[in-house]
């Protein structure tokens, strides 16, 4: 009927989170090879992660590093060569060079194009199908209508994010590490040990404005090598619309969230999507949206899907 996916960056997250509502898990943090025990950059972690996901009866997709430089290509290739010997259901690839590398190897594993693959048109999707891409995550700026057009006219499976912070920009260096000295203005705050002491384990926010409506109040969440929207994307109220438009693969973004987040969000969407696919009348979403709002420090958004600024929210009405 549908596939609900989420992510886990390492084995700790995979063990501590409640993934029971999901059909598939993307393993790894594609933005930061330094992230502790990251599946994307640690060959020795792959087997344990794969085994755990499979033991839950779920599909398991491995994420590849999104922005490899020349010097990253050798270790990424080593990881790919090892992963190709394992029963992953697909690789998620953001980088065109890695697509070419996989094709040159004669790999037949299905490939999913990730969010930083910059997919905007069905013609690009057609080109990427020649490289073995079977599923695409369109650029967040695309509206639902545009995503549906790509799905229908390529044709290709499309992953539609339905909840969680939107990845907006990715970096080759860590913004948190770059500013770590200045961060510790308090003499009581323990100093980091080296260039990276996993300071991203604490939440980092970028804010602008006075929070009183007198200026544009903007917020972003920074995870070091990636900056996410401050607000959480939320499409709960539009579950039946998503079904009517023909979508059936959905994604919850959970990087940087608490260990309870992935389970709570998953259950709400599983229930809502099941009802929508079975044709049940839409429930009163207000209490559920209130629950989701409580988990979103800066509020909810979905504007891109409705041809507007990403930070705006459009309810069912």
């Amino acid at each position: 009927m549908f596939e609900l996916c989420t992510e886990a960056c390492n084995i700790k997250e995979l063990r501590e989170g409640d993934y029971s509502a999901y059909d598939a898990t993307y393993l790894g943090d594609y933005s930061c090879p330094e992230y502790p025990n990251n599946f994307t950059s640690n060959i020795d972690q792959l087997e344990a992660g794969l085994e755990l996901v499979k033991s839950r009866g779920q599909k398991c997709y491995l994420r590849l590093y999104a922005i490899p430089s020349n010097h990253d290509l050798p270790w990424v290739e080593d990881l790919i060569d090892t992963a190709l010997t394992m029963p992953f259901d697909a690789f998620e690839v953001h980088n065109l060079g890695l697509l070419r590398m996989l094709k040159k190897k004669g790999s037949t594993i299905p490939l999913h194009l990730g969010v930083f693959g910059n997919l905007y048109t069905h013609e690009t999707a057609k080109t990427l199908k020649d490289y073995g891409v079977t599923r695409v995550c369109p650029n967040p700026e695309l509206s639902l209508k545009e995503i549906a057009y790509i799905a229908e006219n390529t044709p290709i499976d499309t992953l539609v994010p339905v909840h969680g912070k939107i990845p907006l920009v990715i970096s080759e260096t860590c913004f948190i590490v770059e500013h770590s000295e200045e961060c510790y203005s308090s003499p009581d705050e323990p100093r980091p040990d080296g260039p990276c002491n996993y300071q991203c384990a604490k939440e980092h926010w970028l804010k602008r404005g006075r929070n009183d409506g007198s200026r544009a109040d903007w917020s972003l969440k920074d995870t070091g090598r990636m900056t996410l929207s401050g607000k959480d994307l939320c499409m709960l109220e539009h579950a039946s619309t998503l079904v009517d438009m023909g979508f059936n693969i959905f994604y919850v973004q959970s990087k940087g969230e608490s260990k309870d987040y992935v389970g709570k969000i998953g259950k709400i969407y599983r229930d809502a999507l099941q009802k929508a696919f079975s044709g049940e009348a839409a429930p009163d979403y207000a209490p559920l949206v209130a629950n989701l709002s409580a988990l979103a420090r800066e509020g909810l958004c979905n504007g891109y899907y409705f041809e507007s600024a990403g930070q705006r929210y459009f309810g069912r009405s």
Partner: protein
Amino acid sequence: MVMMMAPGGTLEMARAVLDEGADAVYVGVVGWSRRGAQDELNDDEIARTIDYATTKGKEVRLVVNTMPSSTEIPMFLEHIQRYASWGARGFMISDIGAIRLAREILPKDVEIHTSVGCGITNYEDVKFLGDAGANYVVLPYRLSVEEIRQITAENSVGIEVFLFKTPSGGKICPGKCMMSSYFNFHRWLDANGKDHFHGSASRGGDCLRVCQTDWKFNMGQLEFDEPMTLKENPALWLEELPEYLAAGVGCLKVPGRDRSPELVRSITRVYRQAVDDIQGSDHPDLAKYAAELETLRGRWRTERHKRDNRLLSEAENLSRNAMAATL
């Protein structure tokens, strides 16, 4: 011989850079390039620029580097065929599907440059784009000479670099950033059914430069003492140019479609002289350009600051009005 391209954000600028010795001018097509309409040329201006360039034995390359909508692709192809028939000698494109289709329909002697919107990070990316039909791949303005040597060693496609750069690393811009449109974005169709956008660096119109405003960085309960911007800005450079050419760079790109014609004219003149010196001598004296280039860097920063302030004010006003409308 390396080709030096310079920008034509206006008809006046296009002529000026050709007069100052650019081998080619690159101009944005209204609604199809990563700038606001004030820095793009309409069809009449494009035709006049091509005529002017032809009389001087120079070339025009057209910037059509927005990520088009799927439904705009036929219109995109019709436009580039038309401009090629007028004498345009190349196109700058970001969308992979559009690159592939453009290669299929354009004459072989019309060249395709990939745009920085492709967001490449390694030599395998360059190979991919070459396979798709690109004649030139522009590198991001943060790669070192060594990285460029690695890329040219692995590729036979032409390599293009900007004549400005940022320190290595940091946020990938342009090509993989959507901060601007997250805060402000709207879309409308014109009478011809063409999509126009405001606020998206990738889809058209101006990036609203939200990375350049004053952000407060909070970590838990701690807050930075001073506000900060999120990204460093590129600066004009020169000293490494001989090494870049020796590394195999085949096309140099003077930046500045959105700057004043006077500034861009001066920048083009300096780089033309420097490139001629480098190509004409084993030991070019580039130190003689240092003082003038430093002055130009200052003017560049001043104009950028004015532009950023304008765009940020727009972004703030639009954002405030939009949020007020939803209350």
